[in-house]
C-alpha cells in the first residue's frame, strides 16, 4: 500500500511572479485514511514549500480549509483521497473570491458582511448578571441552533450562482447567521435586521438554486434561512405600502 500514489493538481498563483493562475502537478503517496489536506501538507513538507493554503483544526470545525476539489466547494480536511483515487485530485481556490495567492482567497467581503448583519444579541428584555440566565426551552433553542452552527467556511458562497453574478448580495452564510439571531428568543432586533434582509443586497437576490445547502459541511441549510426570510421580508415589504408610515427609518 505504501507505494501507491495519487496525482494532485493544484492551481498555483503567486501574484509577484505569475502572470496568471496555472496548474501544477504533484505525486503524493496515497493511503486510505488520508484527507486532501494531508496531501497538501505532504506537498508543503516534502515537495514544494512555496505552496500556500489555509488550515488549522483538521477536523471540520475551524472553517479555514475550504477550496474547490474536483469542481465542488469542499473542506479539504474532510474530503478523503479514497473517494477520489485512482482519479486525479484537482484543487483550486474557492470560486467567486479573488485569489490572494495559491489556494488562499481574499475574504474581506464576507467579514464585512458578517459585521453588517449585527451578529450579536440585542436583547428584547435586558437582564443583569445577577438576574441569571434567560430561560430558553429546547424547542426555542431548536429554532436557531442549526443556523448557529455555521463555521464561516464560505463554501456556500462559492456554490451560490447569484453571489457569483452580484457580489453585493449578502449571501447564504451571513443570511443564515442573521436569521440565527432573529430566531433567538433572547433577541429583540429582528426589525432592524429585516431592513437589510429586504434591501437590494438582501434575500430577493436568491433564485432558490439550493446548491448552498447541498455543499454546507455543517448542515446549516442556509437556503432554508434565506427562504424563511423571504416570506417575512415580503410581508414586511407589502406592509410598508399598506400602512401609512411616518418619516421613519
Amino acid at each position, binding site marked *: 500500500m505504501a507505494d501507491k500514489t495519487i496525482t494532485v493538481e493544484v492551481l498555483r498563483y*503567486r*501574484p*509577484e*511572479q505569475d502572470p496568471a493562475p496555472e496548474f501544477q502537478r504533484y505525486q503524493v503517496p496515497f493511503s486510505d*485514511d488520508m484527507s486532501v489536506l494531508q496531501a497538501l501538507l505532504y506537498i*508543503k*513538507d*516534502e515537495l*514544494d*514549500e*512555496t505552496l*500556500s*493554503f*489555509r*488550515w*488549522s*483544526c*483538521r*477536523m*471540520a*470545525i*475551524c*472553517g*479555514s480549509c475550504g477550496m474547490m476539489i474536483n469542481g465542488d466547494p469542499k473542506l479539504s480536511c*474532510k474530503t478523503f483521497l479514497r473517494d477520489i483515487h485512482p482519479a486525479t485530485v484537482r484543487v483550486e481556490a474557492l470560486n467567486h473570491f479573488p485569489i*490572494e*495567492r*495559491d489556494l*488562499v482567497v*481574499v*475574504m474581506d467581503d464576507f*467579514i464585512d458582511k*458578517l*459585521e453588517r448583519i*449585527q*451578529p*450579536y*444579541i440585542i*436583547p428584547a428584555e435586558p*437582564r443583569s*448578571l445577577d438576574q441569571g*440566565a*434567560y*430561560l*430558553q*426551552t*429546547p424547542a*426555542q*433553542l431548536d429554532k*436557531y*441552533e442549526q443556523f*448557529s*452552527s455555521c*463555521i*464561516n467556511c464560505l463554501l456556500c458562497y462559492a456554490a451560490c450562482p447569484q453571489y457569483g453574478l452580484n457580489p453585493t448580495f449578502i449571501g447564504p452564510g451571513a443570511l443564515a*447567521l442573521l436569521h440565527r*439571531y432573529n430566531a*433567538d428568543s*433572547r*433577541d429583540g432586533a429582528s426589525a432592524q435586521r429585516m431592513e437589510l434582509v429586504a434591501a437590494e443586497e438582501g434575500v430577493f437576490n436568491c433564485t432558490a438554486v439550493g446548491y448552498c445547502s447541498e455543499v454546507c459541511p455543517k448542515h446549516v441549510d442556509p437556503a432554508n434561512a434565506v427562504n424563511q426570510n423571504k416570506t417575512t421580508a415580503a410581508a414586511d415589504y407589502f406592509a410598508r405600502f399598506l400602512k401609512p408610515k411616518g418619516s421613519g427609518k
Partner: protein
Amino acid sequence: MESFKADVVIVGAGGAGLRAAIAVAEADPGLAIALVSKVYPMRSHTVAAEGGSAGVAQAHDSFEHHFNDTVSGGDWLCEQDVVEYFVAQCPQEMVQLEHWGCPWSRKPDGHVNVRAFGGMKIERTWFAADKTGFHMLHTLFQTSIKYPSIKRFDEHFCADLIVEDGRAQGVVVIGIASGEFMLIEAGAVVFATGGAGRVFRENTNGGIVTGDGMALAYRHGVPLRDMEFVQYHPTCMPGTGLLFTEACRGEGGFLLNKDGYRYLQDYGLGPAEPVPRNKAMELGPRDRLSQAFWHEQQKGRTIEGPHGSVVHLDLRHLGERKLRERLPQIYELAEEFLGVDPAKTPIPVRPAVHYTMGGILVDGSCAAPLPGLYAAGECSSVGIHGANRLGSNSLAELCVFGKVAGIEAARFARTVSPSAAATLQKQAQASEHRARAIVAKSDGTERIAHLRKEMAETMERGCGIYRLGDSMQATCDKLDELRQRYKNIGIEDKSSVWNSNWLMAIELGFQLDVAQAMAYSALNRKESRGAHQRLDGFEQRDDEHYLKHTLALFDGDGRPRIDYSPVRITKSRPAVRAYGAAGEQAEKEARHG
C-alpha cells in the same frame, strides 16, 4: 515602519483574547484596542474544544467542591488563592456568555443543563452539544463586533514583543497578505496566544498552536512556569490525534481493552458500575486514564491498529438518538474520518497530547513579572491547573482570566506614557531585520519540516506519558542540536504575499524554544506528580523537595536555567490523590478525622 497607536494590544483572538478585548472595551470605551490574530478570530483553536466549560450550577454543589476537585486534580501544584477566585467567578462568566447568545444546551424547563466530567465530583460542566468551544468562540467573536473601540488586525503575525524602559510597550506584526511589518505601540500588552501542543507528534491541536506568545515572553526574560506538565488526553483518534471529547464518557461511554474489559478498574479507579459515577472509572482524571492506557499496552492488552495500539471507546449502549443529540460532532467524526458508526461499533482511541498546563508566569491579576505584560488562557500559567488540568476548567479559564487580563491591562495602560516613538521604531526595525534575515539567507540547507518532525518525535520519546531520566536527557540533547541546526534553515519561498513558508519557520523557532523549556523542566523534576510521571526511581510524589513550581528561564543559545518558586497553599494541604471507591473513602475520613 508604519505604526499604530493603541492603549492595549491583545495578541491572539481566541476565547481569552476576545474576552480580554471586550473587557477593555467595557472598562473604558475611550481606550483604543488592537486585537491581533495570525488567523481570523473564528479559526482560533478554542473552536475545537468540545465537551464543556465548568461553573457551579446546582444547589447541592459548591465553590468548595469545585475548588477541591481542581486542587486535588492538579496534584496540589495549584495556586490556591487563584483557584478560589476562579471557581467563584466561573458561574457568572457562563451566565455572561448566555446573555451574549451562547446556545447552551437546556433542560426541558428552559434552564441551562450541565453534564458530568472527569475528576469533577458533581456535574457542573456547561455545554453546547459537543461543540462548546466552537459556540463560545463564535459568540465572543460576534459579540466583539459590537464594540467600535476594538480594532482587529486579522491575519497579522506577531513577530516580536517590544520591551523598552523595563516594560512591554507594544508588538511588531507582519501583515500576512502583504508581508509588511507594522509596529503596534501600546501602554499594555496582553498575550492570549494559546498552547504549544504541536511540539509533539500525535496531538489534538490545530496547526496554529505553536507557542508563539510563550516563546516571545520567554525570550524577553519572563519565566515559563511548570512547562513539564503536558496533558495527554486519553481518547483521541489514532494517527491524526483528533479529539473524542471527555463528554463521551460524561454521557456514559466505556473504555474497553482487547478483551472487552473495563480495564480502568485495575488502576484504582473502580468499582466498575454500569452507569457513570463521578470521579470514578471513565470519569477519572485525564492523567490517570492516559497512564492506565500505557500500562495496558505494556501488558499486551491493547489492540493493534495501523497507527499503533488502541483501546475501545464504547458508546453503543447510549443508543443512536442520544448520541446524535448530545454528541453529534463525535458521531460525524467517527463516521467520516474512521468509517465507524459509534451506535454500532466501538471507536478505536489512544492518548494524544492535548494541553500545556504550564505557560507564561503571571500572578492572579494576569500580570507577568515584566511590567505592562499580561497573559491569559493556555499560554499563561496563572496557577489553576497545577500538574494536571481537569476537563472543562480551561474554557472557563478563558473567560474568567481573559476578563481579568483585559481589566488589569486597561488599568495599567492608563498609568503610563509611551517612550519616545523613535526608540520604539528602532527596536521594531531590528526585529524586522531579524525576521527578514530568515528569508534573505540563501545558503541554508536544513528543511523546516524535517526539523519539526525530529522535534516532535524526540518530544514524544522523552516527554511522553511516562518518562525516564535517560530518555529525557536524550531529548534535551536533541533539542540543543536542533536549535543549532535551526540556524542553518533554508526557505524556498522568497515572496512577500502570504509566505507561509517563512511564518512556519518563525513558528518553528518559537516551538524549539518552548520544547526546550518543557524538556529541561521535566528532566529536573525528580518526582512523579500529575502529568509528569517517572519510572526511574522517582515514582512517588515528593512534597518535601518538589512541592514547588518549576521556572524555566531563557538563556540565549544555551540551555534554559531552571529555578523553583513556592506553591501558594491556603486551605488544602497535600493529601493522597485517590479516585473511585478509594477516593470516596479518603474523603469520608478527611471529613471525620
